[in-house]
């Protein structure tokens, strides 16, 4: 779990230049409501495939806001439900995934958005998440689905609803992009 943090200084911020890939015009839908592949760049193909598998076989409690994706393939809104039997039972949360043009070689920027930010020792009140696979432990073989699963399990294993100890200071001083924070991952048990 995170105890300390500081702004990334020495390391080149990974996603300094976020080149927005050109937006897709609303793609024609196939019979089952899935958008069809228009462009065959590797970046889009990967995102499309991920999207389809997420729509087709979503992990429990996870749904993609397909409308948001149709507007812009590089920003996904994903709804996630608090599991039964956990501290977050009955709550709904929304995650925002931003993919830059280096995805999947560069990690996606993932934050909680909306009115309900989970109260959790690894989640700051501005939606930033302290999770190692979102920065240094990212691997291109991970996916949106595996990130969702990690976040869901992070929520499920929580035993006490509280904010990170340095929440106030962090929220005041952090960069808008959580990837520019140099995180210290202290404790994987929560």
């Amino acid at each position: 779990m995170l105890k300390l943090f500081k702004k990334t200084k020495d390391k080149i911020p990974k996603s300094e230049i976020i080149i927005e890939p050109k937006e897709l015009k609303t793609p024609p839908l196939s019979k089952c409501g899935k958008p069809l592949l228009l462009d065959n760049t590797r970046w889009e193909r990967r995102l499309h495939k991920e999207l389809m598998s997420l729509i087709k076989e979503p992990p429990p409690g996870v749904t993609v806001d397909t409308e948001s994706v149709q507007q812009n393939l590089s920003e996904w809104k994903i709804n996630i439900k608090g599991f039964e039997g956990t501290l977050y039972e009955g709550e709904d949360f929304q995650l925002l995934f931003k993919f830059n043009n280096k995805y999947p070689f560069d990690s996606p920027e993932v934050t909680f958005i909306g009115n309900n930010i989970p109260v959790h020792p690894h989640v700051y009140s501005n939606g930033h998440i302290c999770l190692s696979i979102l920065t240094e432990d990212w691997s291109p073989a991970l996916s949106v689905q595996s990130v969702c699963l990690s976040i869901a399990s992070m929520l499920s294993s929580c035993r006490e609803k509280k904010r990170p100890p340095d929440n106030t200071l962090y929220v005041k001083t952090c960069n808008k992009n959580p990837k520019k924070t140099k995180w210290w991952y202290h404790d994987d048990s929560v």
Partner: protein
Amino acid sequence: MDSDNEFLDNVDSGNVSSGDEGDEDFGMDVDPASSTERQLDTEEYQYKVLTTDEIVQHQREIIDEVNVVLKLSTPTTRILLNHFKWDKEKLFEKYFDGNPEEFFKCAHVINPFSKGTEAVRQKTTRNHPEECEICFSLLPPDSMTGLECGHRFCLTCWREYLTTKILTEGLGQTISCAAHGCDILVDDVTVTKLVPDTRVKVKYQQLITNSFVECNQLLRWCPSVDCTYAIKVNYAESRLVRCKCGHVFCFACGENWHEPVQCRWLKKWIKKCDDDSETSNWIAANTKECPKCSVTIEKDGGCNHMVCKNQNCKYDFCWVCLGSWEPHGSSWYNCNRYDEDEAKAARDAQEKLRSSLARYLHYYNRYMNHMQSMKFENKLYASVKQKMEEMQQHNMSWIEVQFLKKAVDILCQCRQTLMYTYVFAYYLKKNNQSMIFEDNQKDLESATEMLSEYLERDITSENLADIKQKVQDKYRYCEKRRTVLLDHVHEGYEKDWWDYTE
């Protein structure tokens, strides 16, 4: 080292001068046989200056030496060596000591002798298409590749993955397999094979060369700006090394040659000078805070009745006891509450800070003073050169005027030594030996200042012979005193004379 001789350029040679206040032993155009940069120990410190190509070559030699014994593949050996910071003895020790599973696991390499790898290889000879887990494309097996760990991705994804790691993250020898949670390292041959772009390859080569030099204890990059040489030694020690670019530094810490002080104290000192801890010391020693609004106040005279200048505060208080002014009545210059325990303790603490600050400033000023003078001395080289030319027009031969350059060389060395003696002295606890050291320091300092003064005098044809005499005597004396001081400090290191304050 070969470079020493050309620099020292011993014009004079022969007997040893008396080395004492040498005003009377003139006429001896001789020099102590010592080279001015002579090490105190008699044995030479062996080192080599390597170019970037030689570093790469050296790297290969180490790998080959290890491979004669281990008989592994070159890329694997490279990863292993990198893991052991290029210390082949340590590698051998661990290799023959412990269990091989553990050995390869720690180095993030698949054990080449384990049977598991065979299975992976067989698995990969299948014919049907495989899906790349990164781009999700179905591809024939010959478009897929992977390390011994068995995680396979397509060639395009590997290329992009490695390029991102190298260019964006600046990783070299420490790039691991692209699979999540797999820490098996990608070897250099695989990288070069999978990345066709020369620009990326060059960068990769730089990165692995750099990590080779940085983690190898027997190598150090020359710290001089834009210098691409590295120094290679046979054993790492705090010793003087001279790069081909002319820069002279300490091999152990990379700072300018800092005899007689040791690396760790110099490091402490530099940090102390750099950070603003001394500024806050000054503030603590010289100021107080308004007891009400906490604004910092420096008292520069006047009575103890303070009125805070902060317009929103205007608090009346006593400087001495920091209490409200009211109970003091009309005794403006004295505070009868002064001796209260609390006030006394505060006063003592402040007193302590003041004296420690004064002590620091004493050493700091002298240290900076020599550093400053050294910079001026460099200008002196220019003016001395001009003088030497003038003198040659006054019927003196080239060889006869070389004493001037030599004098400036010695002057600079003395300044540099003196500069670091203050760092040494700052951390030194007082004892009998430290007093001897201080006498040596004083002696060298006054002689150095005199030499400096002689060199600044105008040289005319009338006083030329006289000046030459004086300069030569003085620089010999300086050199001698410098050696005495350094020998004494080194003897102290060996005999454990020195106690430190921290």
